[in-house]
């Protein structure tokens, strides 16, 4: 990458490290609670990550009706 792009990635990485420390502050370090760290997305600012990878939209669906049987393999 060019110098500008490199600096941008460096800044994003610094921000990622701060964010990761905050996320891990609730972790008990027991390998059960989620743990966070540097990965393939750490060079992206959160807004960039969201714009690329988080593009799914919600769709209004009905609340599940408890009376529908799920005992068999047939759909309701």
């Amino acid at each position, binding site marked *: 990458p060019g110098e500008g792009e490199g600096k941008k990635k460096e800044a994003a990485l610094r921000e990622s490290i701060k964010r990761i420390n905050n996320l891990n502050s609730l972790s008990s370090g027991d390998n059960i609670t989620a743990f966070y760290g540097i990965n393939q997305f750490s060079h992206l600012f959160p807004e960039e990550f969201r714009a690329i990878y988080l*593009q799914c939209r*919600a769709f209004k669906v009905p609340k599940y009706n408890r009376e529908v049987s799920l005992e068999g393999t047939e759909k309701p």
Partner: protein
Amino acid sequence: LPAKFDWRDKKVITQVRNQETCGGCWAFSIVGAIESVYAIKGNVLEEFSVQQVIDCSYNNVGCQGGSTVAALSWLNQTHVKLVKDSEYLFKAETGLCHYFSRSDFGVSIIDYAAYDLSGQEDKMMKMLFHWGPLAVIVDAVSWQDYLGGIIQHHCSSGEANHAVLITGYDTTGSIPYWIVRNSWGRTWGIDGYAHIKMGSNICGIADEVSAVFV
């Protein structure tokens, strides 16, 4: 229901894919579900074309985003046959929809179910066990930095922005969790998977749950 169940153990889950810079998570999620249900019905496990869904699902916007339920609705209404991945390769950008002749091999869905199951994750377990892997949407903002373990915090319900596939669950430990296949490659998370705590609608995992029938 068994205390622990994962469709991967039945060899009906295809490998973890990588959506690259395409915002087509919604297509990866439902195609994964179709592949598995097709295999659960006794057919050979095949990879079907995610690109076909991205290009052809007119009620979504390809790599710019979409909805799992809208895509399932389109598949159900049109009875489009999904062709093999090798016939319609993933290229990580939206393209023109390719059409295939009726005689070409492909699988179409016969129906789907989509529900809000918040507060009823026990029902989700039954659906998963009886019907196959479930396509769900989640809040994945904090997943940018996820490496492993069970996600229990830093996630919201009602703020979905990503689609994934639940392949199993494990209730044998102190924290029961869903086993979730992502589409960010095998280097992300636990070999491409995440574990999410069950029972509290963590990340909104129960807000929009879809099952497919082929």
